[in-house]
């Protein structure tokens, strides 16, 4: 083998790059998050658990477009219960803890939804009330 001095370090760098996740994690897989169920004990949502797990972001995006762009604030009625279209008005009424519900999965999956550019979590909203 020729040019060992450059080729072997090069190969070591390559292998380190490819195996980056192995040594970066140090063999600790971490635990997948368990989002907190509604503290109020609510069992029903606008859709099934499977649907919400996979598609909640598309539902929220649709609601956002309905309300803010089309001015369509019509109420969503599921099994006799009315939900107003909105993150704070519908979702967070039951899932009141943003940190333990939304953030638990979003942090794990490195998702940074821009909901919170405009919306406030119930905790933040409460502190705003106090200062006012």
């Amino acid at each position, binding site marked *: 083998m020729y040019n060992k001095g450059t080729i072997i370090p090069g190969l070591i760098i390559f292998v380190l790059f490819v195996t980056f996740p192995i040594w970066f994690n140090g063999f600790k897989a971490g635990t997948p998050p368990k989002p907190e169920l509604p503290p109020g004990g609510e069992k029903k949502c606008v859709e099934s658990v499977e649907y919400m797990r996979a598609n909640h972001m598309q539902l929220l*995006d649709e609601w956002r477009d309905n309300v803010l762009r089309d001015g369509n604030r019509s109420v969503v009625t599921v099994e006799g219960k009315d939900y107003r279209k909105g993150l704070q008005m519908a979702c967070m009424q039951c899932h009141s803890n943003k940190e333990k519900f939304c953030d638990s999965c979003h942090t*794990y999956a*490195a998702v*940074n939804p821009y909901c919170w550019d405009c919306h406030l979590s119930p905790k933040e909203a409460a502190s705003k009330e106090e200062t006012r």
Partner: protein
Amino acid sequence: MKYAFSFLAVIALILIAGLGSQIPGMHYLFGVAIPYLAIMLFVGGFVYRIIQWAKSPVPFSIPTTCGQAASLDFIKQDKLDCPTKTSEVVARMFLEVFLFRSLFRNTKSEIHDGPKLTYESSKWLWVFGLLFHYSFLVIVIRHMRLFIEPIPRWLTAIEGVDAMLQIGAPTLYLSSITLLIGLLFLFARRLMNRQVRYISLNNDYFPLVLIFAIAVTGILMRYFLRTDIDIINIKNLAMGLVTFSPVIGAKIGAIFYIHLFLVSILLAYFPFSKLMHMGGVFMSPTRNMANDSRAKRHINPWNDPNIKPHSYAGYEDEFREFMVEAGIPVEKELPAAKDEV
């Protein structure tokens, strides 16, 4: 119709993964066994190929020189295009690897009436080549969010820039679109350009179609076919794979297994295909050698040490008599014969 085979091969692979992963108990084959096998083939094959190349001698000093060589003091040397020092070679290689500098010089030749042959600069391949490669790099880096925990800030930052237009939910990644545009150009080039079409083989079309299918399945999974695509389950599987304790908790949709299977095929195919240009670019003697053959003698490693140099003077000493006899001029005459004196 050389490219038809590539399409058929990729469709067959999609069917294998799409149908196979739906058979109960086959999740572990497609989700764990095949990815492990693929990554082992990738790393092992890559290292093997590089070592094979490193064992091949470079008989001659063959850097491509594209500028003024080092000469007299008052003649300006083109240090990047005709490097003489290692540092200059490193700079040249850096620009080659990161900016595809030699592709920037690409020209197009055409025959016009006359007949007249013309050459003109053609930068499209360079532009779309860069677009494709950098999109692919960003996509690979982005996927690291599924393989590491906790996620470092730089990874979130790259992802944030990639999704900065905030289109839809989940937000559209720009690199998904630019990758497809790059691939479409590279594929169209092979079909439209007559000369390139003539020399294109299945092993040119197959990687393009395969990467295209990987990109499309990824996009479908992220934006459209979201049934049973729970990112938490998928990350749990990916984390299990890189910590050697894989688990498949809940059901994951078939589109995920198709995507993963195609990526596994790409990884396994990589070391045995033209895709090895990733490692090969560093091994190419026309780029990684300094043009210093006048200052330093390049010894061919193939030379047999038992064969000693044979100068002309030595040659003439050996054959002088015969040369004189045959009337061939010699530099040193034969010593005068004694009996003639």
